[in-house]
């Protein structure tokens, strides 16, 4: 690594079910302008733009990066897109950080977005293709059997998923940019209808419109702000959706990605050495599943941490302080929102959802059939 890389600007839109007031160019512009303001920069300072969004079917726009280049001040500059399904927000930030670390560019704008109100993700994820019956019913239909497997394997308390939903929604109340602001009781979540048994309505993420942007720079420019978030580890891993002996509940690619990012950041015990984490949890049961996959809990024990309240702000290991994907889910942006929240925490700019004294944070994203993973560790220290 030739250069150190830091996050010095973070901006996001207010997220909601439908940002009918904004076009897609207007949406990305809003996030980008906020990130530039935060970095004390203007468009002319940016050398390169790296953009991510979910598969083209989600909005019906092919190669949106070309269409959006003017809105992102990218005329005459390199702009390119990263494409890794639901993990894309994370891997986009990773690619942008590599451009800085490799010394290719000194100042990079990275951005991710989704305007789910313009499309229908359930439709896009459930194609009726020839030669086979249409079986899958959206992401929930795919992940529900995996969750059932997790519950059986770990003998988890049946309320675990509901506890995560309540906790993440409580965190979301502290985040003015979150889509959902829901003060829900455990009883209310438990009473919500089953959509994909064992996943209840209140245990799923919403569909959101939103965008998030970050400005990444090398040492030379990091001093523009008082509190850069230094990127001390980045990693991306992938595995096939189906193969014999695949552990779908606790995928190898996720474990390898975590090990790689911890090794880079010099972390041997994530529970002790990481102060908080923003982790991609689109269905509440994925909190205990990822607690285990990422090494915060022994296999089969993640649900206990949730049930004991350890993942709340103020607990031993706060997870999803912003409210997470359970409160805000512009799919293509969801991964980068996790990365950005991790950076906000170590910069001390997370507002009412700030974890006091946070110095080291994990940002995590996953996608596809639990097969694409992207992670970074950010630190207040270089």
């Amino acid at each position: 690594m030739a250069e150190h890389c830091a996050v010095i600007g973070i901006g996001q839109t207010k997220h909601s079910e439908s940002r009918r007031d904004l076009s897609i160019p207007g949406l990305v512009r809003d996030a980008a302008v906020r990130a530039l303001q935060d970095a004390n920069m203007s468009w002319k300072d940016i050398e390169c733009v790296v953009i991510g969004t979910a598969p083209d079917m989600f909005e019906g726009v092919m190669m949106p990066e070309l269409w959006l280049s003017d809105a992102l001040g990218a005329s005459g500059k390199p702009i390119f897109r990263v494409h890794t399904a639901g993990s894309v927000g994370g891997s986009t930030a990773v690619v942008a950080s590599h451009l800085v670390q490799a010394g290719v560019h000194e100042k990079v704008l990275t951005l991710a977005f989704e305007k789910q109100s313009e499309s229908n993700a359930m439709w896009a994820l459930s194609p009726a293709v020839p030669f086979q019956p249409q079986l899958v019913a959206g992401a929930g239909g795919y992940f529900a059997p995996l969750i059932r497997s997790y519950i059986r394997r770990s003998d988890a308390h049946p309320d675990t998923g509901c506890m995560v939903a309540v906790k993440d929604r409580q965190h979301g109340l502290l985040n003015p940019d979150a889509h959902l602001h829901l003060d829900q009781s455990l009883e209310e979540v438990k009473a919500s209808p089953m959509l994909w048994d064992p996943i209840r309505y209140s245990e799923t993420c919403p569909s959101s419109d939103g965008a998030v942007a970050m400005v990444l720079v090398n040492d030379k420019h990091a001093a523009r702000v008082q509190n850069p978030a230094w990127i001390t580890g980045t990693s991306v891993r992938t595995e096939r959706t189906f193969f014999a002996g695949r552990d779908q509940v606790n995928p190898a690619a996720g474990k390898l990605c975590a090990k790689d990012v911890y090794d880079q950041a010099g972390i041997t015990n994530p529970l002790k050495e990481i102060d908080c984490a923003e982790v991609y949890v689109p269905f509440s049961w994925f909190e205990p599943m990822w607690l285990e996959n990422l090494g915060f809990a022994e296999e089969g024990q993640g649900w206990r941490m949730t049930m004991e309240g350890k993942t709340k702000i103020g607990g031993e290991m706060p997870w999803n302080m912003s409210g997470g994907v359970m409160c805000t889910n512009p799919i293509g942006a969801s991964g980068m929102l996790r990365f950005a929240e991790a950076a906000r925490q170590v910069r001390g700019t997370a507002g009412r959802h700030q974890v006091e004294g946070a110095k080291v944070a994990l940002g995590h994203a996953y996608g596809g059939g639990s097969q694409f993973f992207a992670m970074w560790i950010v630190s207040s220290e270089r």
Partner: protein
Amino acid sequence: MSEILSAPYVLEYTYTRSTGPVVGRFLEGLRYEVLEGVRTADGRVLCPPVEYDEQGEATTGEFVQLRPSGTVKTWSWVEEPRKSHPLDRPFAWALIQIDGADNSMLHVVDAGEAKRMRTGMRVRLRWAEHKSGTIRDIACFEPMSPFMPGPVHLEYEVNPGQHYSAYLRGLQRGQIIGGKDPESGKVYVPPRAADPVTGRPTSEYVEVADRGVLTTFTIIRIPFEGQKLKPPYCFGAIVLDGADMPIYHLISGVPHDEIRMGMRVKAKWKPKEQWQTSLENILYFEPTGEPDVPFEEYEEHL
């Protein structure tokens, strides 16, 4: 007391209105689908125009062409229109500030139902088909949407490839074909060109049973656009006897609350004369009635 005398009486007459230079020009413009406001002495634009503004000043006589759209400033819903009302269906009376004007126009919003109305909503003008040189040349206003349709239509030819074709032709004969990695012995259903773990070609086709173990499942209760099946239905992962990874299919022929992980299931085939090159030849999987498989025996497939 004598009864009070009473008789119906209609007073009706069509007067001749002098419209004057300002309102007259405005109404004449409506005939040609031109919407104009008039400028006041202090620089404001009024639509509908008036000869004298509310401060008693004569307006300037300078006309400004305006876009036929505006914003609802306030409104009142009419659920049961009267005979003389401009629409024969429920509508709103509204004060509408035309874009570029400083005052508001009283007119009609054709919103269909009250819940579509809100103060601040954007509306566009709908012209009357037949003009009369009156304010009714504006038929009404209608809600404006910030969206437009974006249709996408792609046509594909789906070629399932050599190995998936072998699988589909097997289904046409009532057989389920897998592909075997000759070294690891792992059997993939459907067969594929290479074992994704080892990268070696799965050269040998083997037939697997049309029965196996249900490893995990979900019951889908959510309806969505394009859905072919009517919820609720059960969708599960089945490791067929002789295979090393699950296929996914419907589970039926059993009440949903009796479906279990580890349940033995078998294929329910369509009548033979309906078989095609499709997994749809199997309608669903149903319980065999055999004892459940212990968790340890299928755990590796989760």
